[in-house]
């Protein structure tokens, strides 16, 4: 994690011109994050104790204690985010990255957030889900004027409710969220006095991420902000598989995953190998009587879900959005299905016209995962990633939960591939074939079952 001198660089000249030096000197220095890796949890150096979260491929903002007030400094600015190695996107974010740093405070903390705007247009921050004075809610025009470029605004309120929250602009918000402006806010319960919170269990691992989506034309770098639903880059925290960090846990640990959705569609988040309960939302903790076991929870647009479970099954377990298009990289939604289409005799002809042509899709699309064909510049492949048993053929909202008996508490390092105990993996049957084989298929693609001589499709119409 790097720190940046707020007074350096031409970008500060605007701020310096509009804010007095005395006032600027009073500001906490904004921390800058240059890496898209997952930062280790930030244990609180000051203030009330809490159990910190791990933000997937993100970080927690440091704060400055000022007369009992936790002061943060967020800088809204254009950033270049590495969404995956070799694939970067021009985004708008906070303090060098998208999403911005996670803000972690404790129930009852007095929080003061300085927001400096280095975007080309005004912005605000809405503190999604918080109880706060109306004038701190951040809806431009409704609760406050916009923060003009070069200006710094101050938000100040008490973190009254423990739980899972997010922050995002509420000024030109369609554009600014499509460009990646968002961040997590965790208010930890105040359990310093020793009494556990009735609805918020103590967990050994606490993971948090936002769901966000971008539409980046293959070969370009900037999201198309006007796309409503047909996005092609589906992210956890502006990051795609296989570049999303795995969630690791020691076998038997209680694990919490907090998910917020700032895309334009819902995401059924599905965990393999375990059942969980939704223990809270951005509305607060769910009473125990209202919980039920699930392996998938749908996170609707603008919602947050906090799930808890015991990681008691060792292995590498998939955690992903169950919409299969959301576990893909950039894809052509209008490309026709080529399955079962005989290409014999045509390949050479096409190669004569297009020398680099290769048949794809005749048997399905798995070839894509295996073949590493050259793609346009800065284009994330539709399916990629390799595991111990071959291509994963994924590329979006997908990562793994790695449960190990020997993972040390507090160790977040990737333990590598899971070694499956002998006799616990699906295997190929090499014995005798089934005694009563199913009769071979009699119909062929393009004909209805049982049709004797189905008419071949032709361009000519029916003779009438």
């Amino acid at each position, binding site marked *: 994690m790097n720190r940046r001198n707020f007074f350096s660089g031409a970008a500060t000249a605007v701020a310096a011109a509009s804010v007095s030096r005395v006032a600027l000197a009073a500001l906490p220095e904004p921390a800058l994050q240059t890496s898209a890796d997952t930062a280790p949890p930030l244990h609180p150096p000051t203030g009330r104790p809490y159990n910190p979260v791990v933000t997937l491929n993100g970080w927690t903002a440091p704060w400055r204690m000022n007369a009992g007030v936790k002061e943060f400094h967020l800088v809204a600015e254009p950033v270049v985010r590495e969404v995956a190695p070799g694939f970067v996107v021009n985004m708008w974010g906070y303090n060098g990255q998208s999403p911005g740093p996670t803000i972690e405070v404790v129930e009852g903390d007095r929080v003061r957030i300085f927001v400096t705007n280095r975007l080309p247009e005004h912005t605000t921050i809405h503190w999604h889900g918080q109880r706060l004075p109306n004038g701190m809610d951040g809806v431009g025009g409704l609760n406050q004027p916009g923060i003009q470029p070069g200006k710094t605004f101050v938000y100040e309120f008490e973190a009254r409710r423990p739980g899972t929250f997010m922050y995002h602009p509420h000024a030109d918000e369609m554009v600014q969220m499509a460009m990646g402006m968002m961040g997590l806010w965790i208010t930890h319960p105040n359990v310093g006095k020793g009494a556990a919170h009735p609805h918020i269990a103590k967990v050994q691992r606490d993971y948090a991420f936002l769901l966000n989506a971008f539409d980046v034309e*293959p*070969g370009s770098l900037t999201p198309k902000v006007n796309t409503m639903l047909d996005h092609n880059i589906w992210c956890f925290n502006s990051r795609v598989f296989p570049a999303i960090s795995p969630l690791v846990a020691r076998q038997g640990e209680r694990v919490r995953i907090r998910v917020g959705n700032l895309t334009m569609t819902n995401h059924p988040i599905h965990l393999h190998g375990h059942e969980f309960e939704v223990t809270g939302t951005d509305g607060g903790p769910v009473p125990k009587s209202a919980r039920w076991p699930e392996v998938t929870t749908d996170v609707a647009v603008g919602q947050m879900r906090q799930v808890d479970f015991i990681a008691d099954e060792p292995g590498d377990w998939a955690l992903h959005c169950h919409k299969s298009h959301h576990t893909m990289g*950039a*894809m*052509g939604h*209008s*490309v*026709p*299905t*080529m*399955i*079962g*289409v*005989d*290409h014999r005799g*045509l390949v050479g*002809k*096409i190669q*004569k*016209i*297009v020398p*680099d*042509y*290769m048949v*794809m*899709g005749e048997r399905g*699309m798995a070839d*894509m995962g295996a073949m590493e*064909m*050259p*793609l*346009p510049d800065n*284009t994330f*492949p*539709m399916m990629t990633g390799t595991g111990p048993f071959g291509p994963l053929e994924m590329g979006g909202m997908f990562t793994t939960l790695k449960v190990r008996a020997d993972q040390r508490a507090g160790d977040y390092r990737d333990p590598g591939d899971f070694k499956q105990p002998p006799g616990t993996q699906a295997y190929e049957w090499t014995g005798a074939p089934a005694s009563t084989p199913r009769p071979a298929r009699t119909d*062929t*693609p*393009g004909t209805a079952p049982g049709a004797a001589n189905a008419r*071949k*499709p*032709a*361009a000519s119409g029916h003779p009438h």
Partner: protein
Amino acid sequence: MSAIHRLSLLGAVAFLAGCASVSPDGLRGDVAALTAGRTGGVQAALPAADPAARAQAQQSIQGWLAQPLTQDAAVRIALLNNPGLHARLAALGVADAERVQAITLPNPHLALGRFTNSQEREIERTLSFSLLDLVTLPWRTARQAERMQVATLQTAQEVVTLASDTRRAWLRAVAAEQVAAAHERMAEAAETGAELARRMARVGNWSRLQLAREQAVLHETRAQLARARLAAATEREQLSRRLGVWGLQAQYRLADQLPALPATALPADGIEATALRERLDVQAARRQLDTQAIRQGWSRVGAVFGDIGLAYTRNTTTERATGERDVKRGWELDLPLPLFDWGGAARTRAQAEVEQSAAQLQDTAVRARSEVRSAWRTYRTALDLARQQQGEVVPLRQFISDETTLRYNGMLASVWELLAEARASTQAVANAIEAQRDFWLAETDLQLALTGTSPGALQGLTSGAAATTTPQGH
């Protein structure tokens, strides 16, 4: 007058008519001299008059036709072999013979008479000839020479025009053949797309509507191919006509590409002066004016003394009885009296003809200036367009094709989009060939307008923007 004297008189007359001999090669040499350097930088021979040289020429033609036919070889063949040009050159020979006839002194008349009466026998010998012809001989000789020069200049213009026409026909034929080859490739891409579409529909992956769209593309490209092939055949026929070949000789193979674009363009300064100095039609108009001016000089004499006759008479009278001979010699001059026609009309006519010629020279010069300016502008624009098409558009289309291939690799684009882009880049190549052809056509016009003669209606530039086929929408 002794015979010696008489001979010397006749000799003097013959001397005056000194250039009254027919050109041995029917003025072909003069035409060749005038067309040298005006046939686009190629040393092209004209058909010779003697049979041995003609056989030699036929051998050369066979040799040129055996190789892929270059533009220069086409010009050489056309100038040697084009029947229309043969006819023109023969006509020039005829005109030359007529000239010689026109300035040969009319043969003197010898009138012999034998008259008898009872007393005497009279032998009359009168040698007479028209004096006017003699008096005006220098003028007429000069005038006929001028007229011949004008005719020679006109024939030379026919030669350079034929050379230019042959160049244009060659350019069109070669370009049309290349464009047809591009259409073959486009049709092949469409055939492949349609076949794959049929297979898609057969297994149920595509509706008949989607299949029909690809088949429509196929038929469109097939029709374009048929037109391109016809155009290639038609242009080739035009060239063969200029070359004057038929049958087996017309089976020649064309060069497979047009000459490359020049690195630098011809500058525009001085082109008008060059045209006025070099152009054969301007020279012909100037000669015409000179001729009329000379003619004006003797028109007066001719008109007033329409027919001056000079006769020498020697009459011998023999007394039948005595046998005594009496010789009567004498000159007789016969001239019309200008009582009624003082030659005013003829003078006026000659004056008017001078004015007419002067005006025609002016007209020719003004047109030459304008034509050369216009031809240069067309040439310059054609060069820019051809460079743009070749240097920018074709590479861009290739880049688009390559990028579409990358998108196909990522399953972001379909094979039909790939084929459509391949067709579009082939179309861009065809457009580039046509732009290159248009440049060379414009260059041919410019050279003709600069040093030859009027190119007639200047070729505009054809628009090479063919509609690019769009991939099937989904």
